């Protein structure tokens, strides 16, 4: 059984009088421990797909299951608790709360658990260590570089040990060097810690590091082996 099961999902948005059909019967499986890159032109529904998996949005029709649980059927309060437990999400920008230090930002998901202050402290330290920012714990986001901010966001996404990591264009605003650092980190998380990662990206380098590349084209899925994706450059 796949970790993420998307079954015959329809998703449409109403904008004024116009209806936008993003997905019309999308079916997709993503296995545990995989590293999937989701590519495709702007407006093809990549973010919408991540949102559906994270339970941030609901399909118009069809089911989304993660770890056997029907995410698409849960209530708002069930979803909040479920996300805290199973999802680590990283956005392109605006990830960190500017009033909190890197440490405090990473600690946020743990506040929702029953862990003691001491246990939280240990986990935050480990997470910051994994992303190589142990020495930046007390820095505020404005004191960090873009790459460091995204690595802090990744530390926050892994700190509660989620089932799936979802990243929506995490390198979209980073320079080439920072992007490479972030991607190398993700690859390490996948290979060393067997984290399941789904990343939306425009960056062919990112796709190269992924084990599987999915192409969305107007809501339709084109699965391509990695070699083809690399050749498309």
């Amino acid at each position, binding site marked *: 059984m796949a970790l993420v099961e998307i079954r015959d999902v329809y998703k449409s948005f109403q904008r004024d009088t116009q209806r936008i059909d993003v997905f019309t019967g999308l079916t997709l499986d993503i296995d545990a421990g995989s590293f999937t890159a989701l590519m495709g032109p702007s407006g093809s529904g990549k973010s919408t797909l991540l949102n559906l998996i994270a339970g941030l949005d609901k399909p118009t029709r069809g089911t989304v299951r993660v770890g056997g649980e029907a995410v698409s059927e849960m209530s708002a*309060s069930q979803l909040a608790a479920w996300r805290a437990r199973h999802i680590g999400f990283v956005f392109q920008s605006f990830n960190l709360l500017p009033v909190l230090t890197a440490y405090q930002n990473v600690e946020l998901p743990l506040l929702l658990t029953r862990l003691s202050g001491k246990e939280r402290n240990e986990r935050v330290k480990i997470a910051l260590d994994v992303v190589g920012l142990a020495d930046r714990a007390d820095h505020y986001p404005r004191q960090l570089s873009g790459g460091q901010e995204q690595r802090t966001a990744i530390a926050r996404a892994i700190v509660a040990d989620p089932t799936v990591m979802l990243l929506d264009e995490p390198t979209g605003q980073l320079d080439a060097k920072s992007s490479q650092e972030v991607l190398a980190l993700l690859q390490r998380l996948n290979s060393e810690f067997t984290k399941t990662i789904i990343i939306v990206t425009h960056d062919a380098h990112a796709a190269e590091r992924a084990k599987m590349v999915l192409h969305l084209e107007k809501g339709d899925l084109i699965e391509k082996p990695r070699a083809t994706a690399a050749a498309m450059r």
Partner: protein
Amino acid sequence: MKYFRLVLANLGRHRLRTVLTILSVALALFLFASLRSVTTTLAATAQFGGARRLVTTNATGLVFPLPLAYGNRIKALPGVTGLSWANWFGGKYGDGKRFFANFAVDAESYLKIYPEIVLPADQRDAFLKDRTGALIGKRLLSQFGWKLGQNVTLQGTIFPGDWTFTVDGVYTPTDPAIGDDVLIFHHDYFDERIGRAGIAGWYIVEIDDVSHAPAVAKSIDDLFRNSSSPTKTGTEREFQATFATMWGNVSFLMSTIGLAVVFAILLVTANAMMMSARERTGEIAVLKTIGFSDRLLFALVMVEAGVMALTGAVLGLGGAKLFYPAINFNGLGFLPGFTVAPSTLIIGALVAIGLMLASGLAPALRAARLPIVQALRHVE
């Protein structure tokens, strides 16, 4: 509580705005406590004030005098057992910055009708014998550093000239309503210096029985109804209240300005809360993505409003409670025994809770209801 740091961090986001909001809440509640205390002090004064004493003034207004000749006619009325009279003097001492009440009284009858004015017998005798003597409340001793037996010169404001009195006695009132920062001197000396005008500012009428008060008051006012100076007789309470309104329309201040200020502050606070909630749309969406529930976010915003409202309340109400005793406030002598009553503190605290609900509710609901996907699209 582990979330409290998050609340504090958010309050620290715009430190100046937070401080100003808290200060405006504090100011509003300080004003509220002050204004309400004027009313409660007057009400308390009325309860202390001798129920067996009535005060007769000129019906036209307190500033208009009555003929001295009324005294004997009032005394002759049934139910009247004692009578004294007094006249507002309004003298300034020194630079006049520290105001205190001073008036001329018919000394012997005045001290008899006010047993609450207590002083050693020898000082009392000395005062009664000394035409230019004065009695002072004990607070004036410390306030001006006066000593028993020294001369004190007041500058007349209504009645011009330098008026020098010898401090013959220092009294301690047994009842806070009397006031311990008043200077009184002989009416006869006063009358002489103003050329025997034969005027009294007000009469104090002692009656035989409290239950006769309305009837006696009516018979006094009836007696002078058709004279050149009709009178108005009421209880001491009413008199104190009129006196207090002379220097500021207290009830007007209370009801209008007080409420307007509290309301204005409410708007300021609500606006500040709304602004900070709006700026944080993206952050709230991120917190929801992490798994913060709608209920938790609602609570966090409410607690934030609550911390501001309650800090303001503690500063404002606590400030009023401590401030007035510290400066020995007694409303320039018109509000003896001025105190911020516990009921005022309770009502003030309720106002603060109301303020918290009113200013926190809208942004808290907004945070709880924020749709994540829309909010994030808006931000990115």
